[in-house]
């Protein structure tokens, strides 16, 4: 057997042992793992995910445009696995937890070995990339981002291969991997594009820059990115047609976390919240002294490997990463904000921690280069001891996992029985209704497109804040204040809220947010005092559920305007819900004008088209409850009934969905074209040989 093969196998076994020991819970058992921003979802939600993508979703709060539509293929895959009978515990492992732990190790190992040709260097590079503070903290909650980052070393490895030779197979593989990265986290693809552009310059060996050979090289390197963009075209076009995305708030956000990030922390690859022990989110930590060895080791590797163009490339990647990850610190303190405000797409990087990924990638190769130099230039024993010391510097970061400080995403969680029962009850309801969680929804809360969940904090910070301001108030409304408003009764009705729930103080599952928002009993008392809500759970229950019986249907019609002050009489209509963005409404003997309501958050992109009337198109108007209203007054071509009423049908639809459907077809067609082109070129090359 090849001696090198044995060595590589042993090296990879040792690396994986380190990973498995640190993340044992992700490999043993299939229980649900959930914490922080990593939420679990119900089976109904997963089944719903196996459908055509929709650019509007009613599932959260009062609904809104889906900004992360790029995630749709992953949702779809989750849904398919669920339909095959797998639970969320298995699904999250297959699609997130296992790729996060396996891919970076293999990817960085092959990448660094290709560059440095040294097994100890490849091992250390893998450890640096896997056990640095940024990825360690990322794996406690931001799993989609971490999964996307897991593909990055493998992508660079394939790009280096592609840079050396023309291979349609590698091109196709890269196209698939880049698309996967974009599905998990589009921002990682965004970061990769300029890096690949720079790599194109570094891997070019044709001589003259202004030549056909360079253009051909650039096209070869750019083709996989083009494929990934084509695959993502479906949501890019559709989202560009959405007016004022998210009510415009998305584009009005200011930079976040300026005081968290600093040049020292970026240079030392030290995440500002890394305490070395328990999670300390949003608490900036002191930079331990030993972290200063990290840049020394990395830049020594740059010096030692300066004869290799690709090592210099990773040096530049590291410096770019540092300049961006320090956010508004010197040098160029205004650069980040300028990019955030003006550079297309950069608005998605509200804070700079994502750029730590670039530093980690660069330092992994550079520190590997230091280790390679050690093994080449010094005594084997000295090199071995130093390599172990460097590895220990990063392996030490795994301590919180081993001593149980990072138990949050290392513990299997169990859904409390109360949620189990309430979720079943919601699942059995045939008609649309919302559940309002006070003050915040539990991670076990049930939600689908038919039974959305809303939390009062999001509502008073968003649409309900506008109602408060329209009543002449300038300050932010509090939860206590909203409960004392007379219009709350009507607001709950008009927003289709059937249940108001105060969740369990679930300390076993780290699902106790009352520590941040105030005493649970106080919320229960406040809601009990509202006579229009009926408490349906036992008085001392851990989960308090209140019912609002007068809630409006999702789509309904009235004779007069239905407002916060006026309870208008409903007209019987038949609503056929075809998708979250399309409803067919049949009016039988309706008066004119007739007022139609959609109890989702207001968007001017909702419109009603009357089938029997030419040009009978009505755009949504904002109600005083910040929802959608259409005043239909069809006249032309209608024969009135003797009582003056008319019968007609209409379509209520979200306009950008039309573009989504069109571009899906375009995306698929272009994707197939790319695949056929690659296959044709592969065959042609084989025949030429």
């Amino acid at each position, binding site marked *: 057997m090849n001696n090198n093969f044995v060595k590589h196998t042993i090296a990879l076994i040792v690396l994986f042992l380190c990973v498995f020991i640190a993340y044992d819970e992700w490999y043993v058992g299939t229980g649900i793992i959930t914490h922080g921003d990593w939420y679990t979802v119900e089976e109904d939600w997963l089944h719903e995910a196996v459908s055509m993508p929709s650019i509007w979703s009613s599932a959260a709060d009062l609904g809104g445009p889906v900004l992360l539509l790029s995630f749709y293929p992953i949702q779809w895959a989750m849904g398919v696995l669920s339909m095959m009978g797998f639970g969320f515990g298995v699904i999250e492992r297959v699609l997130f937890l296992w790729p996060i732990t396996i891919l970076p190790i293999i990817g960085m190992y092959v990448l660094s070995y290709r560059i440095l040709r040294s097994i100890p260097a490849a091992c250390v590079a893998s450890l640096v990339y896997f056990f640095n503070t940024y990825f360690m903290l990322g794996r406690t909650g931001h799993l989609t981002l971490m999964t996307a980052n897991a593909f990055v070393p493998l992508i660079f490895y394939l790009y280096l291969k592609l840079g050396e030779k023309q291979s349609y197979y590698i091109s196709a593989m890269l196209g698939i991997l880049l698309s996967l990265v974009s599905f998990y986290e589009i921002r990682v693809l965004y970061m990769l594009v300029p890096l690949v552009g720079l790599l194109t310059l570094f891997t070019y060996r044709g001589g003259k820059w202004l*030549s056909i050979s360079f253009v051909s090289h650039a096209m070869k390197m750019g083709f996989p990115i083009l494929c990934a963009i084509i695959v993502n075209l479906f949501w890019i076009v559709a989202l560009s047609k959405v007016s004022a995305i998210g009510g415009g708030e998305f584009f009005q956000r200011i930079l976040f976390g300026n005081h968290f990030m600093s040049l020292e922390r970026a240079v030392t690859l030290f995440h500002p919240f890394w305490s070395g022990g328990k999670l300390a989110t949003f608490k900036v930590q002191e930079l331990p002294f030993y972290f200063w060895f990290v840049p020394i080791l990395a830049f020594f590797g740059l*010096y030692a490997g300066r004869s290799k*163009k690709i090592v*210099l490339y990773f040096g*530049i990647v590291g410096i770019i990463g540092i300049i961006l990850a320090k956010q508004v610190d010197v040098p160029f303190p*205004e650069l980040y904000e300028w990019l955030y405000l*003006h550079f297309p797409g950069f608005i998605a990087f509200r804070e700079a921690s994502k750029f730590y990924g670039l530093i980690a990638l660069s330092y992994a190769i550079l520190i590997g280069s230091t280790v390679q130099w050690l093994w080449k230039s010094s005594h084997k024993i000295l090199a071995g001891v130093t390599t172990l010391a460097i590895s220990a510097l990063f392996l030490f970061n795994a301590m919180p996992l081993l001593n149980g400080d990072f138990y949050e995403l290392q513990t299997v969680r169990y859904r409390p029985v109360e949620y189990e029962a309430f979720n079943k009850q919601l699942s059995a309801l045939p008609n649309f209704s919302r559940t309002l969680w006070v003050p915040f929804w539990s991670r076990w809360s049930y939600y689908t497109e038919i039974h959305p969940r809303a939390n009062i904090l999001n509502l008073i910070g968003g649409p309900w804040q506008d109602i408060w301001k329209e009543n002449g108030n300038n300050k932010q409304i509090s939860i206590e204040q909203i409960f004392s408003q007379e219009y709350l009764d009507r607001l709950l009705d008009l927003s289709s809220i059937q249940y108001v729930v105060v969740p369990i103080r679930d300390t076993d599952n780290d699902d106790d947010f009352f520590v941040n928002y105030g005493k649970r009993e106080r919320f229960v008392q406040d809601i009990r005092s509202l006579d229009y809500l009926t408490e349906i759970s036992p008085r001392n229950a851990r989960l308090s559920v209140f019912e609002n019986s007068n809630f409006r249907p999702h789509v309904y019609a009235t004779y007069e305007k239905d407002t916060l002050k006026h309870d208008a009489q409903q007209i019987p209509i038949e609503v056929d819900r075809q998708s979250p963005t399309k409803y067919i409404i049949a009016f039988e003997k309706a008066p004119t004008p007739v007022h139609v309501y959609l109890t989702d958050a207001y968007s001017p992109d909702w419109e009603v088209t009357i089938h029997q009337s030419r040009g009978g198109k009505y755009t949504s108007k904002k109600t005083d409850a910040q929802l959608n209203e259409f005043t239909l007054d069809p006249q032309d071509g209608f024969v009135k009934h003797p009582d003056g009423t008319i019968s007609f049908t209409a379509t209520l639809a979200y306009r950008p969905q039309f573009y989504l459907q069109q571009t899906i077809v375009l995306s698929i067609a272009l994707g197939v074209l790319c695949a056929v082109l690659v296959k044709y070129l592969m065959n042609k090359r084989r025949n030429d040989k």
Partner: protein
Amino acid sequence: MINKLNKGHMLYLGLGVATLLFIALWAYGALALVLEISIALVLTFFIAFIIFSFSPHLTTLRIKQLILVALCVVSLSLFHGSKASQGFSEAIDGDSLLGVVWIIVAMAFSVRGSLLMKVGLGIFIFLPVLIFLEVDELIVKRLIIHALFLLFAGIMNSLKSEPDNV
């Protein structure tokens, strides 16, 4: 066809790209920064033109480079600190400006990349000592900036010396 491009074509191409870049930066609100650097450079070349016209004995390339770089540094620094600069973008702080100077000097005089990297690395090795001695945080920060610029200049000059490919 691209190979047949002559210097005239290149000049027009360069001007075209520069104009587009100028318009793009103007559109994105970074014109002030571009103006600041452009004015400093125009000033440099104007003074250099006068010096070289009236002093024909300054002929060697090294001397010309030295004068150009010195003027560039002085005018950039003066303009950055002058009243005329007020209201313009303050995107470049003093240390970054000096860092840019490192790069200009290193590129103009083709300082060996390895030497620049050694100095940059030397600063990083020296940093833990300063931190251990509890030296002012600001000094540490400024040293990091200079080390990073030196490393960057070192990479650029190492690339110029055409290292081996992987």
